[in-house]
């Protein structure tokens, strides 16, 4: 169930924002290896984070922050982030694209959200992301 206040139509949007520490993610990578992130990122997302030397930690942080930011726009409570149902891929143009599926899509639909747009930024020690929902006007209520 969506927590109040929920998006109620055009003009109302719950933004989501998140910050992820490189130090934390690097520790996870060092301690558990790449396999750990398969619980959080799809194979395609992991591929997006890979460079010639392996997984790029800043990219991982950005992807994780984007998922959390997107999840926050859904304003649901008592639910864990459905990591693999919020997919953040790199577009041909280089900007991130969010694809909601499964449980995340159902949570979004309960709030009238059809899509989520996100922006990611990072610098040495942190990655941040901000997300905004795209709300579809209910059918039959347009003037």
């Amino acid at each position, binding site marked *: 169930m969506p927590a109040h206040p929920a998006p109620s139509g055009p003009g109302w949007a719950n933004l989501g924002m998140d910050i992820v520490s490189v130090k934390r*993610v690097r520790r*996870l990578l060092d301690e*558990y290896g790449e396999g750990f992130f398969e*619980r959080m990122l799809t194979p395609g997302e992991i591929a997006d984070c890979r460079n010639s030397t392996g997984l790029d930690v800043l990219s991982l942080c950005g992807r*994780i922050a984007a998922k959390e930011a997107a999840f926050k726009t859904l304003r649901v409570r008592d*639910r864990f982030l*459905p990591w693999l*149902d919020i997919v953040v891929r790199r577009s041909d143009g280089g900007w991130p694209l969010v694809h909601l599926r499964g*449980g995340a899509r159902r949570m979004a639909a309960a709030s009238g959200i059809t899509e989520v747009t996100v922006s990611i930024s990072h610098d040495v020690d942190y990655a941040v992301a901000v997300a905004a929902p795209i709300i579809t006007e209910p059918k039959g209520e347009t003037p």
Partner: protein
Amino acid sequence: MTDGLDQVKAWIVKRHPDRDDIAPDLDLIENRLIDSLSFVEFVFLLEQVSGRSIDMDTLEVDSIRTLEAIDRTFFKARVS
């Protein structure tokens, strides 16, 4: 308190050195002792300690909200 729960408690305290103890009924989520990122690692730990596979998609928030709930869900349930 079970040995498994002791390990869980020690894991949390190690990551939050500002705390030297955690009350059994303390809300771990409201008090930010477990967040989205650490949740994944926490589930990994619970799987190792309890010997059970955990489906993150179906896991109820209330089942890991407190040490009491964790004990009830992942440790005591095995021997009852």
